[in-house]
């Protein structure tokens, strides 16, 4: 079985030239950095906040904060990792503001013992995503990932969707590498388990059922 590798390329020196120019006040150079990463920041922000308007605000706030603090970027990490760290913090602030009743923390204690082996494991259809049309699939994927606690969701998105390395994810979230790995494992397994409802072999596509299950286990609380 082949392994999964992160997808993000890194034209590093050229990027550092842009960052340097932006530091010296070249707004066009900074605009190029915005162009390069605005889609990623938006996606990360929407995954965390689960709200479109908040995600738009996060894109603006994160880039402006990055611009204002460029001098603090020393180039020890990639610009993108540094930017993601800012964006994640902005997004978490939005999330906390919107849901003050919930404790939202990326440091929450995570038990790993309960990830015992699933007892009955049903295999999926060969091309499970093709059982559904695009809108249905989008709904399934959105609802499923929204059901994860924020700390798992964020690690999964940075690591598996955005392609940051484990070390970069740890740096962006201010977590240890073992903490990232433990959350990533649980996030992957929980998503797999939840998607199995829709993708297991022999299951007839049924849009109604997808709608009916809406929000049954969403939440950001500790698990």
């Amino acid at each position: 079985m082949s392994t999964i590798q992160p997808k993000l390329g890194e034209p590093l020196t050229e990027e550092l030239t842009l960052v340097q120019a932006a530091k010296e006040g070249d707004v066009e150079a900074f605009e190029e950095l915005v162009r390069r990463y605005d889609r990623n920041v938006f996606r990360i922000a929407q995954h965390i906040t689960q709200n479109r308007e908040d995600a738009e605000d996060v894109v603006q706030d994160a880039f402006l904060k990055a611009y204002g603090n460029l001098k603090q970027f020393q180039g020890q990490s990639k610009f993108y990792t540094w930017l993601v760290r800012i964006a994640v913090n902005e997004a978490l602030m939005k999330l906390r503001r919107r849901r003050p009743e919930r404790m939202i923390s990326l440091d929450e204690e995570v038990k790993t013992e309960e990830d015992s082996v699933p007892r009955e494991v049903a295999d999926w259809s060969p091309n499970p995503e093709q059982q559904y049309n695009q809108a249905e699939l989008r709904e399934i994927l959105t609802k499923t990932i929204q059901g994860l606690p924020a700390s798992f969701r964020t690690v999964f998105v940075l690591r598996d969707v955005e392609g940051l390395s484990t070390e970069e994810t740890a740096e962006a979230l201010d977590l240890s590498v073992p903490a990232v790995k433990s959350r990533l494992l649980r996030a992957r397994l929980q998503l797999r388990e939840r998607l199995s409802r829709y993708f297991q072999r022999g299951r007839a596509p049924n849009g109604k059922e997808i709608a009916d299950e809406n929000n049954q286990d969403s939440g950001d609380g500790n698990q």
Partner: protein
Amino acid sequence: MKCAEFLQELTNYLDGVIDDRTRAELEDHLAWCHNCYVVCDTTKKTIEIYRDSKLYELPEDLRGRLRSAIVSKCHARKKAGPEHA
């Protein structure tokens, strides 16, 4: 190797960050344990489906608006002087 041990190594295995000996042990386990094979295979699919999904794409018109707003605020800060930047 037990299933629980396999599961603990699953993320490292999928990410390709394990030594040859552990990899051989994991693959040996996969060869006879159907449940772990399915968990491994469908976890990999889960990652691929999310990676390929076009969730939360930033629409081009919105993208343009956000970028103009960011750039004009950067210009404004630049004009205001470095202490405000």
